[in-house]
Protein backbone atom coordinates (compact mmCIF):
# COMPACT_ATOMS: atom_id res chain seq x y z
CA UNK A 1 0.00 0.00 0.00
CA UNK A 2 2.77 2.40 0.96
CA UNK A 3 4.82 1.52 -2.06
CA UNK A 4 1.92 2.18 -4.35
CA UNK A 5 1.43 5.58 -2.79
CA UNK A 6 5.03 6.60 -3.32
CA UNK A 7 4.75 5.68 -6.95
CA UNK A 8 1.71 7.84 -7.49
CA UNK A 9 3.24 10.84 -5.78
CA UNK A 10 6.30 10.66 -7.98
CA UNK A 11 4.32 10.14 -11.10
CA UNK A 12 2.02 13.08 -10.48
CA UNK A 13 3.94 15.60 -12.44
CA UNK A 14 2.39 18.62 -10.74
CA UNK A 15 2.18 20.59 -13.94
CA UNK A 16 0.54 23.54 -12.27
CA UNK A 17 3.34 24.02 -9.80
CA UNK A 18 5.78 23.52 -12.64
CA UNK A 19 4.19 26.23 -14.70
CA UNK A 20 4.23 28.59 -11.75
CA UNK A 21 7.91 27.93 -11.18
CA UNK A 22 9.14 28.50 -14.67
CA UNK A 23 6.80 31.26 -15.73
CA UNK A 24 8.90 34.12 -14.32
CA UNK A 25 11.94 32.96 -16.27
CA UNK A 26 10.04 32.31 -19.47
CA UNK A 27 8.24 35.62 -19.19
CA UNK A 28 11.48 37.47 -18.65
CA UNK A 29 13.13 35.79 -21.61
CA UNK A 30 10.15 36.46 -23.83
CA UNK A 31 10.21 40.12 -22.82
CA UNK A 32 13.91 40.82 -23.02
CA UNK A 33 14.77 38.63 -25.97
CA UNK A 34 11.56 38.01 -27.85
CA UNK A 35 10.34 41.58 -27.57
CA UNK A 36 13.51 43.28 -28.79
CA UNK A 37 13.84 40.71 -31.53
CA UNK A 38 10.46 41.71 -32.87
CA UNK A 39 11.41 45.35 -32.36
CA UNK A 40 14.58 44.83 -34.38
CA UNK A 41 12.50 43.57 -37.26
CA UNK A 42 10.16 46.56 -36.91
CA UNK A 43 13.04 49.00 -36.88
CA UNK A 44 14.54 47.42 -39.95
CA UNK A 45 11.43 48.33 -41.86
CA UNK A 46 11.23 51.85 -40.45
CA UNK A 47 13.15 55.09 -40.38
CA UNK A 48 14.00 55.12 -36.70
CA UNK A 49 16.84 57.31 -35.58
CA UNK A 50 18.47 58.07 -32.26
CA UNK A 51 16.85 61.10 -30.76
CA UNK A 52 13.70 60.90 -32.87
CA UNK A 53 10.65 60.31 -30.75
CA UNK A 54 8.67 58.36 -33.30
CA UNK A 55 9.34 56.34 -36.36
CA UNK A 56 7.45 55.49 -39.48
CA UNK A 57 7.12 52.57 -41.79
CA UNK A 58 9.72 52.72 -44.51
CA UNK A 59 9.26 49.47 -46.37
CA UNK A 60 12.30 47.86 -47.90
CA UNK A 61 14.18 51.17 -48.05
CA UNK A 62 16.81 50.23 -45.52
CA UNK A 63 17.50 46.89 -47.11
CA UNK A 64 17.75 48.46 -50.53
CA UNK A 65 20.36 50.97 -49.45
CA UNK A 66 22.26 48.43 -47.43
CA UNK A 67 22.52 45.98 -50.25
CA UNK A 68 23.83 48.67 -52.50
CA UNK A 69 26.44 49.82 -50.02
CA UNK A 70 29.97 48.56 -50.57
CA UNK A 71 30.74 48.60 -46.85
CA UNK A 72 27.93 46.17 -46.31
CA UNK A 73 29.28 43.81 -48.89
CA UNK A 74 32.68 44.13 -47.33
CA UNK A 75 31.27 43.45 -43.88
CA UNK A 76 29.27 40.44 -45.02
CA UNK A 77 32.26 39.00 -46.82
CA UNK A 78 34.50 39.61 -43.85
CA UNK A 79 32.06 38.03 -41.43
CA UNK A 80 31.99 34.87 -43.50
CA UNK A 81 35.71 34.78 -44.22
CA UNK A 82 36.72 35.49 -40.64
CA UNK A 83 34.36 32.84 -39.33
CA UNK A 84 35.37 30.13 -41.74
CA UNK A 85 39.10 30.76 -41.32
CA UNK A 86 38.84 30.95 -37.56
CA UNK A 87 36.80 27.77 -37.26
CA UNK A 88 39.20 25.80 -39.45
CA UNK A 89 42.28 26.97 -37.60
CA UNK A 90 40.62 26.52 -34.23
CA UNK A 91 39.42 22.98 -34.90
CA UNK A 92 42.75 21.77 -36.24
CA UNK A 93 44.63 23.31 -33.33
CA UNK A 94 42.13 22.12 -30.75
CA UNK A 95 42.40 18.56 -32.03
CA UNK A 96 46.14 18.66 -31.63
CA UNK A 97 45.94 20.16 -28.17
CA UNK A 98 43.22 17.79 -27.01
CA UNK A 99 45.37 14.83 -28.07
CA UNK A 100 48.34 16.28 -26.23
CA UNK A 101 46.39 16.92 -23.05
CA UNK A 102 44.57 13.63 -22.90
CA UNK A 103 46.87 11.57 -20.78
CA UNK A 104 47.92 12.90 -17.38
CA UNK A 105 51.43 14.24 -17.01
CA UNK A 106 53.33 16.34 -14.55
CA UNK A 107 52.19 19.94 -14.71
CA UNK A 108 49.06 19.25 -16.71
CA UNK A 109 46.92 21.29 -14.33
CA UNK A 110 49.13 24.33 -14.67
CA UNK A 111 49.27 24.06 -18.44
CA UNK A 112 45.51 23.72 -18.58
CA UNK A 113 45.17 26.93 -16.58
CA UNK A 114 47.59 28.81 -18.81
CA UNK A 115 45.96 27.54 -21.96
CA UNK A 116 42.52 28.56 -20.78
CA UNK A 117 43.44 32.18 -20.07
CA UNK A 118 42.49 33.59 -23.48
CA UNK A 119 38.94 32.30 -23.21
CA UNK A 120 38.23 33.11 -19.61
CA UNK A 121 39.65 36.61 -19.58
CA UNK A 122 37.15 39.22 -20.76
CA UNK A 123 37.18 39.63 -24.54
CA UNK A 124 37.86 43.32 -24.48
CA UNK A 125 40.84 43.02 -22.18
CA UNK A 126 42.49 40.27 -24.15
CA UNK A 127 41.96 42.32 -27.28
CA UNK A 128 43.66 45.32 -25.76
CA UNK A 129 46.59 43.15 -24.85
CA UNK A 130 46.84 42.16 -28.48
CA UNK A 131 46.47 45.73 -29.60
CA UNK A 132 49.64 46.55 -27.73
CA UNK A 133 51.41 43.46 -29.02
CA UNK A 134 50.43 44.44 -32.56
CA UNK A 135 51.25 48.12 -32.20
CA UNK A 136 52.74 49.57 -35.40
CA UNK A 137 55.87 50.85 -33.72
CA UNK A 138 56.38 49.04 -30.47
CA UNK A 139 55.12 45.60 -31.36
CA UNK A 140 57.15 42.90 -29.68
CA UNK A 141 56.67 40.73 -32.76
CA UNK A 142 58.22 43.43 -34.89
CA UNK A 143 61.08 43.70 -32.44
CA UNK A 144 61.80 39.99 -32.73
CA UNK A 145 61.60 40.16 -36.52
CA UNK A 146 64.09 43.04 -36.49
CA UNK A 147 66.47 41.06 -34.33
CA UNK A 148 66.51 38.19 -36.81
CA UNK A 149 66.86 40.68 -39.63
CA UNK A 150 63.57 39.81 -41.21
CA UNK A 151 62.73 43.48 -41.63
CA UNK A 152 64.04 46.87 -40.60
CA UNK A 153 62.46 49.45 -38.28
CA UNK A 154 61.51 51.44 -41.30
CA UNK A 155 59.51 48.91 -43.22
CA UNK A 156 58.07 47.20 -40.17
CA UNK A 157 54.72 45.56 -40.82
CA UNK A 158 51.69 47.60 -39.85
CA UNK A 159 49.86 44.79 -38.17
CA UNK A 160 46.66 46.68 -37.69
CA UNK A 161 47.20 49.34 -40.29
CA UNK A 162 47.51 47.40 -43.48
CA UNK A 163 44.26 45.82 -44.68
CA UNK A 164 45.39 42.25 -45.21
CA UNK A 165 47.52 42.16 -42.10
CA UNK A 166 44.67 43.68 -40.13
CA UNK A 167 42.28 40.99 -41.30
CA UNK A 168 44.78 38.31 -40.41
CA UNK A 169 45.26 39.90 -37.00
CA UNK A 170 41.55 39.89 -36.28
CA UNK A 171 41.28 36.25 -37.32
CA UNK A 172 44.26 35.40 -35.13
CA UNK A 173 42.77 37.04 -32.08
CA UNK A 174 39.51 35.16 -32.60
CA UNK A 175 41.46 31.92 -32.88
CA UNK A 176 43.49 32.82 -29.83
CA UNK A 177 40.27 33.21 -27.86
CA UNK A 178 38.51 30.11 -29.12
CA UNK A 179 41.22 27.46 -29.25
CA UNK A 180 41.06 26.96 -25.46
CA UNK A 181 37.30 26.64 -25.58
CA UNK A 182 37.29 24.12 -28.41
CA UNK A 183 40.10 22.17 -26.81
CA UNK A 184 38.23 21.70 -23.57
CA UNK A 185 35.07 20.69 -25.40
CA UNK A 186 37.00 18.12 -27.43
CA UNK A 187 38.71 16.84 -24.30
CA UNK A 188 35.32 16.25 -22.76
CA UNK A 189 34.27 14.37 -25.88
CA UNK A 190 37.33 12.22 -26.12
CA UNK A 191 36.95 11.31 -22.48
CA UNK A 192 33.73 9.60 -23.41
CA UNK A 193 35.45 7.17 -25.77
CA UNK A 194 35.90 3.91 -23.85
CA UNK A 195 39.59 3.20 -23.54
CA UNK A 196 39.13 -0.29 -24.92
CA UNK A 197 38.28 1.01 -28.36
CA UNK A 198 41.69 2.42 -29.23
CA UNK A 199 43.19 -0.70 -27.65
CA UNK A 200 41.08 -2.89 -29.90
CA UNK A 201 42.20 -0.78 -32.86
CA UNK A 202 45.83 -1.23 -31.83
CA UNK A 203 45.39 -4.97 -31.65
CA UNK A 204 43.59 -4.98 -34.97
CA UNK A 205 46.71 -3.44 -36.45
CA UNK A 206 45.79 0.22 -36.79
CA UNK A 207 48.58 2.76 -36.38
CA UNK A 208 48.32 6.26 -34.97
CA UNK A 209 46.89 8.07 -38.01
CA UNK A 210 44.42 5.38 -38.96
CA UNK A 211 43.09 5.25 -35.39
CA UNK A 212 42.84 9.03 -35.34
CA UNK A 213 40.95 9.48 -38.60
CA UNK A 214 38.91 6.29 -38.78
CA UNK A 215 38.07 5.66 -35.15
CA UNK A 216 38.56 8.71 -32.95
CA UNK A 217 37.26 11.49 -35.19
CA UNK A 218 34.07 9.68 -36.29
CA UNK A 219 33.27 8.79 -32.70
CA UNK A 220 33.71 12.40 -31.65
CA UNK A 221 31.55 13.80 -34.41
CA UNK A 222 28.68 15.13 -32.28
CA UNK A 223 30.96 16.89 -29.85
CA UNK A 224 33.11 18.23 -32.66
CA UNK A 225 29.99 19.66 -34.21
CA UNK A 226 29.11 21.39 -30.95
CA UNK A 227 32.56 22.95 -30.82
CA UNK A 228 32.33 24.05 -34.45
CA UNK A 229 28.88 25.56 -34.01
CA UNK A 230 29.72 27.54 -30.93
CA UNK A 231 33.04 28.72 -32.33
CA UNK A 232 31.30 29.83 -35.49
CA UNK A 233 28.57 31.67 -33.62
CA UNK A 234 31.03 33.33 -31.25
CA UNK A 235 33.10 34.61 -34.15
CA UNK A 236 30.26 35.55 -36.44
CA UNK A 237 28.35 37.54 -33.84
CA UNK A 238 31.30 39.20 -32.14
CA UNK A 239 31.90 42.91 -32.49
CA UNK A 240 34.25 43.45 -29.55
CA UNK A 241 37.47 42.19 -31.10
CA UNK A 242 37.00 44.23 -34.24
CA UNK A 243 35.92 47.31 -32.36
CA UNK A 244 38.93 47.33 -30.09
CA UNK A 245 41.62 46.19 -32.48
CA UNK A 246 40.78 48.17 -35.57
CA UNK A 247 37.35 49.72 -35.17
CA UNK A 248 36.57 48.36 -38.60
CA UNK A 249 39.53 50.03 -40.25
CA UNK A 250 41.72 50.52 -42.10
CA UNK A 251 39.19 51.79 -44.62
CA UNK A 252 36.47 49.36 -43.59
CA UNK A 253 38.65 46.38 -44.44
CA UNK A 254 38.01 44.60 -41.16
CA UNK A 255 34.41 45.63 -40.68
CA UNK A 256 32.05 42.77 -39.87
CA UNK A 257 28.28 42.65 -39.75
CA UNK A 258 27.98 43.21 -36.00
CA UNK A 259 30.59 45.97 -35.90
CA UNK A 260 29.01 47.65 -38.92
CA UNK A 261 25.62 47.42 -37.24
CA UNK A 262 27.06 49.13 -34.19
CA UNK A 263 28.82 51.80 -36.20
CA UNK A 264 25.74 52.55 -38.24
CA UNK A 265 23.11 52.21 -35.57
CA UNK A 266 24.68 53.65 -32.45
CA UNK A 267 27.57 55.75 -33.59
CA UNK A 268 25.84 56.85 -36.76
CA UNK A 269 22.47 57.21 -35.10
CA UNK A 270 20.61 55.38 -37.86
CA UNK A 271 18.83 52.79 -35.75
CA UNK A 272 16.82 51.44 -38.64
CA UNK A 273 19.78 50.72 -40.86
CA UNK A 274 21.71 49.26 -37.94
CA UNK A 275 18.84 46.94 -37.11
CA UNK A 276 18.55 45.89 -40.73
CA UNK A 277 22.23 45.01 -40.88
CA UNK A 278 22.10 43.01 -37.69
CA UNK A 279 19.16 41.01 -39.02
CA UNK A 280 21.51 39.44 -41.52
CA UNK A 281 22.90 37.51 -38.60
CA UNK A 282 19.67 35.59 -38.27
CA UNK A 283 20.06 33.03 -41.09
CA UNK A 284 23.36 31.85 -39.66
CA UNK A 285 21.88 31.63 -36.18
CA UNK A 286 18.90 29.67 -37.42
CA UNK A 287 21.22 27.23 -39.16
CA UNK A 288 23.26 26.87 -35.98
CA UNK A 289 20.12 26.29 -33.92
CA UNK A 290 18.97 23.64 -36.36
CA UNK A 291 22.23 21.73 -36.14
CA UNK A 292 22.31 22.01 -32.36
CA UNK A 293 18.85 20.45 -32.24
CA UNK A 294 20.03 17.67 -34.49
CA UNK A 295 22.94 16.92 -32.20
CA UNK A 296 20.74 17.03 -29.11
CA UNK A 297 18.14 14.69 -30.58
CA UNK A 298 20.73 12.25 -31.83
CA UNK A 299 22.20 12.15 -28.35
CA UNK A 300 18.79 11.23 -27.01
CA UNK A 301 18.37 8.39 -29.43
CA UNK A 302 21.61 6.55 -28.64
Amino acid at each position, binding site marked *: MRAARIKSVGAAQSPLLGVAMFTPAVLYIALIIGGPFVLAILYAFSDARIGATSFHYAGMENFRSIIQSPSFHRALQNSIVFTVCAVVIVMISANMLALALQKPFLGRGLIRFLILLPFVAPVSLGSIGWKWILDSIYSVITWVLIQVHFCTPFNAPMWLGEPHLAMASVICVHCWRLIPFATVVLLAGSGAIPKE*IPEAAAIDGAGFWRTFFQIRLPMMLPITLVAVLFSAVFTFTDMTVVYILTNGGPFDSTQTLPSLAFATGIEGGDLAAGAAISLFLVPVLVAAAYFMLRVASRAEVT
Partner: protein
Amino acid sequence: MAVVEARNLTKIFKEGELGAVNNVNLATQEGEFMVFLGPSGSGKTTLLRMIAGLETPSSGEILIGGRVVNDLSPRERRIAMVFQSYALYPHLSVYDNIAFPLKAQKVPKAQHQQKVEWAANLLGLGRLLKRKPRELSGGERQRVALARAIVREPAVFLLDEPLSNLDAKLRASAREELENFHKQVGTTTIYVTHDQVEAMAMGDRVLVLHQGTVRQIGSPKEVYENPADTFVATFLGSPPMNLLEYSDVIVGFRPEGFLPADLVPGGKQVQFRYRIKYVEYLGAERVLYGNIEGGHLETKEIISRLSWNMPSGYEAGSVHDFAVAETDLRFFDRKTEKRCSAKPYPWQ
Protein backbone atom coordinates in the same frame (compact mmCIF):
# COMPACT_ATOMS: atom_id res chain seq x y z
CA MET B 1 49.46 -22.50 -34.18
CA ALA B 2 51.66 -21.14 -31.48
CA VAL B 3 52.57 -21.55 -27.92
CA VAL B 4 52.32 -18.68 -25.47
CA GLU B 5 54.98 -18.63 -22.80
CA ALA B 6 55.64 -16.41 -19.84
CA ARG B 7 58.93 -16.55 -17.96
CA ASN B 8 59.25 -14.93 -14.55
CA LEU B 9 56.74 -12.33 -15.60
CA THR B 10 56.19 -9.49 -13.11
CA LYS B 11 54.23 -6.25 -13.22
CA ILE B 12 54.53 -3.71 -10.46
CA PHE B 13 52.28 -0.66 -10.62
CA LYS B 14 53.34 1.05 -7.43
CA GLU B 15 56.91 1.04 -6.23
CA GLY B 16 57.42 -0.82 -3.00
CA GLU B 17 54.08 -2.59 -3.13
CA LEU B 18 53.23 -6.12 -4.11
CA GLY B 19 53.05 -6.45 -7.86
CA ALA B 20 49.85 -7.05 -9.74
CA VAL B 21 51.59 -10.00 -11.33
CA ASN B 22 54.44 -11.72 -9.51
CA ASN B 23 56.87 -14.09 -11.13
CA VAL B 24 54.41 -15.92 -13.31
CA ASN B 25 55.61 -18.86 -15.37
CA LEU B 26 53.33 -20.58 -17.83
CA ALA B 27 53.34 -22.30 -21.19
CA THR B 28 50.30 -23.11 -23.27
CA GLN B 29 50.05 -26.08 -25.53
CA GLU B 30 49.13 -25.82 -29.17
CA GLY B 31 45.44 -25.51 -29.74
CA GLU B 32 44.54 -25.64 -26.07
CA PHE B 33 41.87 -23.62 -24.32
CA MET B 34 43.57 -22.30 -21.21
CA VAL B 35 41.63 -20.43 -18.55
CA PHE B 36 43.11 -17.81 -16.23
CA LEU B 37 40.91 -18.12 -13.16
CA GLY B 38 40.96 -15.92 -10.11
CA PRO B 39 38.99 -13.41 -8.02
CA SER B 40 39.01 -9.72 -8.97
CA GLY B 41 42.36 -8.17 -8.30
CA SER B 42 44.18 -11.44 -8.78
CA GLY B 43 46.09 -10.06 -11.75
CA LYS B 44 44.54 -12.23 -14.42
CA THR B 45 43.52 -9.33 -16.65
CA THR B 46 46.90 -7.65 -16.19
CA LEU B 47 48.57 -10.88 -17.20
CA LEU B 48 46.39 -11.11 -20.29
CA ARG B 49 47.04 -7.49 -21.24
CA MET B 50 50.79 -8.05 -20.96
CA ILE B 51 50.53 -10.97 -23.34
CA ALA B 52 48.51 -8.74 -25.68
CA GLY B 53 51.06 -5.95 -25.51
CA LEU B 54 48.76 -3.43 -23.86
CA GLU B 55 50.85 -3.33 -20.68
CA THR B 56 54.63 -3.44 -20.40
CA PRO B 57 56.04 -6.02 -17.99
CA SER B 58 58.23 -4.73 -15.19
CA SER B 59 60.43 -7.77 -15.66
CA GLY B 60 60.32 -11.15 -17.31
CA GLU B 61 59.71 -12.34 -20.83
CA ILE B 62 56.76 -13.16 -23.00
CA LEU B 63 57.13 -15.52 -25.92
CA ILE B 64 54.68 -16.24 -28.69
CA GLY B 65 55.46 -18.98 -31.13
CA GLY B 66 58.90 -19.33 -29.65
CA ARG B 67 60.10 -15.75 -30.10
CA VAL B 68 60.35 -13.06 -27.47
CA VAL B 69 57.73 -10.42 -28.10
CA ASN B 70 58.39 -7.98 -25.24
CA ASP B 71 59.40 -5.22 -27.64
CA LEU B 72 56.70 -5.87 -30.18
CA SER B 73 53.59 -3.68 -30.38
CA PRO B 74 50.22 -5.43 -30.18
CA ARG B 75 49.71 -5.41 -33.89
CA GLU B 76 53.02 -7.13 -34.49
CA ARG B 77 52.21 -10.05 -32.22
CA ARG B 78 49.60 -11.76 -34.41
CA ILE B 79 47.15 -11.99 -31.55
CA ALA B 80 43.47 -11.19 -31.43
CA MET B 81 41.57 -10.03 -28.35
CA VAL B 82 37.94 -9.95 -27.32
CA PHE B 83 37.29 -7.39 -24.59
CA GLN B 84 34.77 -7.62 -21.79
CA SER B 85 32.74 -4.87 -23.42
CA TYR B 86 33.52 -6.25 -26.91
CA ALA B 87 34.84 -2.82 -27.96
CA LEU B 88 32.98 -2.87 -31.26
CA TYR B 89 33.40 0.31 -33.30
CA PRO B 90 30.00 1.94 -32.81
CA HIS B 91 30.03 4.03 -35.96
CA LEU B 92 30.86 1.10 -38.28
CA SER B 93 28.52 -1.59 -39.56
CA VAL B 94 29.07 -5.23 -38.61
CA TYR B 95 30.70 -5.79 -42.01
CA ASP B 96 33.07 -2.84 -41.54
CA ASN B 97 33.86 -3.89 -37.99
CA ILE B 98 34.95 -7.30 -39.20
CA ALA B 99 36.79 -5.83 -42.16
CA PHE B 100 38.66 -3.26 -40.10
CA PRO B 101 41.61 -5.50 -39.14
CA LEU B 102 42.01 -6.46 -42.78
CA LYS B 103 42.14 -2.80 -43.79
CA ALA B 104 44.56 -2.00 -41.01
CA GLN B 105 46.91 -4.80 -41.95
CA LYS B 106 46.75 -3.71 -45.58
CA VAL B 107 45.30 -6.96 -46.84
CA PRO B 108 44.50 -6.45 -50.55
CA LYS B 109 40.98 -5.16 -50.99
CA ALA B 110 40.01 -7.96 -53.34
CA GLN B 111 40.26 -10.46 -50.50
CA HIS B 112 38.24 -8.48 -48.00
CA GLN B 113 34.78 -9.63 -48.92
CA GLN B 114 35.67 -13.27 -49.06
CA LYS B 115 37.37 -13.25 -45.68
CA VAL B 116 34.66 -11.22 -43.98
CA GLU B 117 31.97 -13.52 -45.29
CA TRP B 118 33.91 -16.57 -44.16
CA ALA B 119 34.22 -15.20 -40.62
CA ALA B 120 30.62 -14.00 -40.57
CA ASN B 121 29.25 -17.33 -41.72
CA LEU B 122 31.35 -19.18 -39.19
CA LEU B 123 29.49 -17.25 -36.51
CA GLY B 124 26.08 -17.08 -38.09
CA LEU B 125 26.16 -13.35 -38.74
CA GLY B 126 25.11 -13.48 -42.38
CA ARG B 127 21.90 -11.49 -41.93
CA LEU B 128 23.41 -8.88 -39.68
CA LEU B 129 26.23 -7.54 -41.80
CA LYS B 130 24.63 -4.18 -42.46
CA ARG B 131 23.55 -3.46 -38.89
CA LYS B 132 25.28 -1.20 -36.43
CA PRO B 133 26.45 -2.53 -33.04
CA ARG B 134 23.82 -0.62 -31.08
CA GLU B 135 21.11 -2.56 -32.94
CA LEU B 136 22.47 -5.94 -31.83
CA SER B 137 21.78 -8.06 -28.78
CA GLY B 138 24.52 -8.96 -26.31
CA GLY B 139 25.03 -12.41 -27.79
CA GLU B 140 25.17 -11.03 -31.32
CA ARG B 141 27.75 -8.49 -30.27
CA GLN B 142 29.91 -11.25 -28.85
CA ARG B 143 29.74 -13.04 -32.16
CA VAL B 144 30.78 -9.93 -34.05
CA ALA B 145 33.71 -9.50 -31.68
CA LEU B 146 34.73 -13.09 -32.35
CA ALA B 147 34.35 -12.67 -36.09
CA ARG B 148 36.53 -9.57 -35.98
CA ALA B 149 39.09 -11.56 -34.03
CA ILE B 150 39.10 -14.61 -36.27
CA VAL B 151 39.15 -12.81 -39.60
CA ARG B 152 42.89 -12.21 -39.36
CA GLU B 153 43.58 -15.84 -38.54
CA PRO B 154 45.68 -14.98 -35.53
CA ALA B 155 48.07 -17.27 -33.72
CA VAL B 156 46.45 -16.75 -30.31
CA PHE B 157 43.01 -15.69 -29.08
CA LEU B 158 42.76 -13.68 -25.88
CA LEU B 159 39.36 -13.35 -24.26
CA ASP B 160 38.79 -11.06 -21.28
CA GLU B 161 35.66 -12.17 -19.39
CA PRO B 162 33.47 -11.93 -22.49
CA LEU B 163 30.46 -13.49 -20.81
CA SER B 164 30.24 -11.28 -17.73
CA ASN B 165 28.25 -8.55 -19.46
CA LEU B 166 25.54 -10.96 -20.54
CA ASP B 167 22.55 -11.77 -18.43
CA ALA B 168 22.41 -15.19 -16.85
CA LYS B 169 20.07 -16.78 -19.36
CA LEU B 170 22.19 -15.72 -22.30
CA ARG B 171 25.41 -16.76 -20.65
CA ALA B 172 24.77 -20.48 -20.98
CA SER B 173 24.05 -20.38 -24.72
CA ALA B 174 26.89 -17.95 -25.35
CA ARG B 175 29.24 -20.27 -23.49
CA GLU B 176 28.14 -23.17 -25.65
CA GLU B 177 28.76 -21.10 -28.77
CA LEU B 178 32.26 -20.28 -27.59
CA GLU B 179 33.02 -23.92 -26.95
CA ASN B 180 31.77 -24.92 -30.38
CA PHE B 181 33.73 -22.09 -31.90
CA HIS B 182 36.93 -23.31 -30.31
CA LYS B 183 36.31 -26.85 -31.49
CA GLN B 184 35.82 -25.66 -35.04
CA VAL B 185 38.72 -23.28 -35.26
CA GLY B 186 41.21 -24.85 -32.88
CA THR B 187 43.33 -21.74 -32.26
CA THR B 188 45.26 -21.56 -28.99
CA THR B 189 43.01 -19.58 -26.67
CA ILE B 190 43.54 -17.89 -23.32
CA TYR B 191 40.31 -17.09 -21.48
CA VAL B 192 40.12 -14.91 -18.37
CA THR B 193 37.28 -15.32 -15.88
CA HIS B 194 36.42 -15.16 -12.19
CA ASP B 195 33.65 -17.71 -12.61
CA GLN B 196 34.94 -21.14 -11.63
CA VAL B 197 32.03 -22.91 -13.29
CA GLU B 198 32.99 -21.38 -16.63
CA ALA B 199 36.60 -22.30 -16.02
CA MET B 200 35.86 -25.94 -15.28
CA ALA B 201 33.38 -26.30 -18.13
CA MET B 202 35.43 -24.70 -20.85
CA GLY B 203 39.09 -25.12 -20.01
CA ASP B 204 41.47 -27.79 -21.17
CA ARG B 205 43.67 -26.52 -18.38
CA VAL B 206 43.02 -24.00 -15.64
CA LEU B 207 45.61 -21.57 -14.28
CA VAL B 208 44.54 -20.37 -10.84
CA LEU B 209 45.80 -16.93 -9.88
CA HIS B 210 45.68 -15.21 -6.52
CA GLN B 211 47.31 -11.89 -5.68
CA GLY B 212 49.40 -12.07 -8.78
CA THR B 213 50.94 -15.50 -8.24
CA VAL B 214 50.11 -18.76 -9.93
CA ARG B 215 48.68 -21.19 -7.37
CA GLN B 216 48.18 -24.12 -9.67
CA ILE B 217 48.06 -25.09 -13.33
CA GLY B 218 46.19 -28.23 -14.25
CA SER B 219 43.20 -29.82 -15.88
CA PRO B 220 39.83 -29.07 -14.28
CA LYS B 221 39.91 -32.55 -12.73
CA GLU B 222 43.37 -31.97 -11.27
CA VAL B 223 42.66 -28.58 -9.72
CA TYR B 224 39.36 -29.77 -8.34
CA GLU B 225 40.37 -33.15 -6.93
CA ASN B 226 43.96 -32.30 -6.02
CA PRO B 227 44.16 -28.63 -5.14
CA ALA B 228 47.68 -27.33 -4.52
CA ASP B 229 46.74 -25.10 -1.61
CA THR B 230 43.78 -23.98 0.48
CA PHE B 231 43.03 -21.09 -1.86
CA VAL B 232 42.54 -23.37 -4.85
CA ALA B 233 40.65 -25.80 -2.66
CA THR B 234 38.10 -23.22 -1.56
CA PHE B 235 37.92 -21.21 -4.79
CA LEU B 236 36.91 -24.16 -6.91
CA GLY B 237 33.71 -25.92 -6.04
CA SER B 238 30.55 -24.35 -4.79
CA PRO B 239 29.80 -24.72 -1.93
CA PRO B 240 33.49 -24.69 -1.07
CA MET B 241 35.55 -27.44 0.53
CA ASN B 242 35.15 -27.83 4.28
CA LEU B 243 38.37 -27.02 6.13
CA LEU B 244 39.17 -28.01 9.69
CA GLU B 245 42.19 -26.63 11.47
CA TYR B 246 44.39 -28.48 13.95
CA SER B 247 47.76 -27.92 15.52
CA ASP B 248 49.83 -27.86 12.38
CA VAL B 249 47.56 -29.28 9.74
CA ILE B 250 44.36 -28.32 7.91
CA VAL B 251 42.11 -31.13 6.86
CA GLY B 252 39.73 -30.65 3.97
CA PHE B 253 36.87 -32.58 2.44
CA ARG B 254 34.31 -31.61 -0.15
CA PRO B 255 30.63 -31.29 0.81
CA GLU B 256 29.65 -33.98 -1.67
CA GLY B 257 31.99 -36.36 0.14
CA PHE B 258 30.54 -35.57 3.59
CA LEU B 259 27.51 -37.86 3.71
CA PRO B 260 25.42 -39.87 6.14
CA ALA B 261 27.69 -42.64 7.41
CA ASP B 262 25.72 -45.47 5.80
CA LEU B 263 25.89 -43.76 2.40
CA VAL B 264 29.66 -43.39 2.33
CA PRO B 265 31.12 -46.09 0.03
CA GLY B 266 33.11 -48.87 1.68
CA GLY B 267 36.65 -48.59 2.92
CA LYS B 268 38.11 -46.67 5.78
CA GLN B 269 36.12 -43.65 6.80
CA VAL B 270 36.14 -40.95 9.47
CA GLN B 271 32.92 -40.45 11.43
CA PHE B 272 31.39 -37.36 12.98
CA ARG B 273 28.25 -36.48 14.90
CA TYR B 274 26.64 -33.83 12.71
CA ARG B 275 23.97 -31.41 13.98
CA ILE B 276 22.09 -29.82 11.10
CA LYS B 277 21.32 -26.11 11.50
CA TYR B 278 19.41 -25.47 8.29
CA VAL B 279 18.70 -27.03 4.92
CA GLU B 280 18.58 -25.46 1.46
CA TYR B 281 16.36 -27.32 -0.98
CA LEU B 282 17.69 -26.80 -4.50
CA GLY B 283 15.79 -29.38 -6.48
CA ALA B 284 18.55 -31.59 -7.79
CA GLU B 285 20.29 -31.50 -4.44
CA ARG B 286 19.94 -30.50 -0.86
CA VAL B 287 22.62 -28.49 0.92
CA LEU B 288 22.92 -29.00 4.67
CA TYR B 289 24.62 -26.51 6.97
CA GLY B 290 25.55 -27.62 10.43
CA ASN B 291 28.21 -28.26 13.06
CA ILE B 292 30.23 -31.24 14.18
CA GLU B 293 29.58 -32.11 17.78
CA GLY B 294 32.29 -32.54 20.32
CA GLY B 295 35.33 -30.50 21.09
CA HIS B 296 36.63 -27.32 19.59
CA LEU B 297 35.26 -28.12 16.13
CA GLU B 298 31.76 -27.07 17.04
CA THR B 299 32.18 -23.47 16.01
CA LYS B 300 33.05 -24.18 12.38
CA GLU B 301 30.20 -24.48 9.91
CA ILE B 302 30.39 -27.70 7.91
CA ILE B 303 28.48 -28.19 4.67
CA SER B 304 27.11 -31.36 3.17
CA ARG B 305 25.57 -31.98 -0.25
CA LEU B 306 22.96 -34.67 -0.70
CA SER B 307 21.78 -35.44 -4.18
CA TRP B 308 18.07 -35.71 -4.81
CA ASN B 309 17.93 -39.48 -4.80
CA MET B 310 19.41 -39.84 -1.34
CA PRO B 311 16.93 -40.53 1.45
CA SER B 312 15.13 -37.69 3.16
CA GLY B 313 14.87 -37.24 6.91
CA TYR B 314 17.81 -34.92 7.39
CA GLU B 315 16.03 -31.92 8.78
CA ALA B 316 17.11 -28.82 10.61
CA GLY B 317 17.72 -29.49 14.26
CA SER B 318 18.40 -33.22 13.93
CA VAL B 319 21.69 -34.94 14.70
CA HIS B 320 23.09 -37.78 12.62
CA ASP B 321 26.16 -39.87 12.06
CA PHE B 322 28.00 -38.47 9.06
CA ALA B 323 31.29 -39.64 7.59
CA VAL B 324 34.00 -38.94 5.01
CA ALA B 325 35.96 -41.62 3.18
CA GLU B 326 39.63 -41.46 4.10
CA THR B 327 40.61 -41.27 0.48
CA ASP B 328 38.56 -38.07 0.15
CA LEU B 329 40.57 -36.24 2.82
CA ARG B 330 43.03 -33.60 1.73
CA PHE B 331 45.78 -32.29 3.99
CA PHE B 332 47.34 -28.85 3.97
CA ASP B 333 50.22 -27.53 6.01
CA ARG B 334 48.79 -24.98 8.38
CA LYS B 335 51.63 -22.49 8.06
CA THR B 336 52.15 -22.50 4.28
CA GLU B 337 48.58 -23.49 3.37
CA LYS B 338 50.05 -25.75 0.73
CA ARG B 339 49.12 -29.33 0.11
CA CYS B 340 51.01 -31.89 2.13
CA SER B 341 50.85 -35.61 2.67
CA ALA B 342 48.47 -37.26 5.10
CA LYS B 343 49.19 -36.45 8.72
CA PRO B 344 47.79 -37.90 11.90
CA TYR B 345 44.67 -36.11 13.04
CA PRO B 346 43.13 -36.06 16.48
CA TRP B 347 40.02 -38.11 16.02
CA GLN B 348 41.79 -41.13 14.59
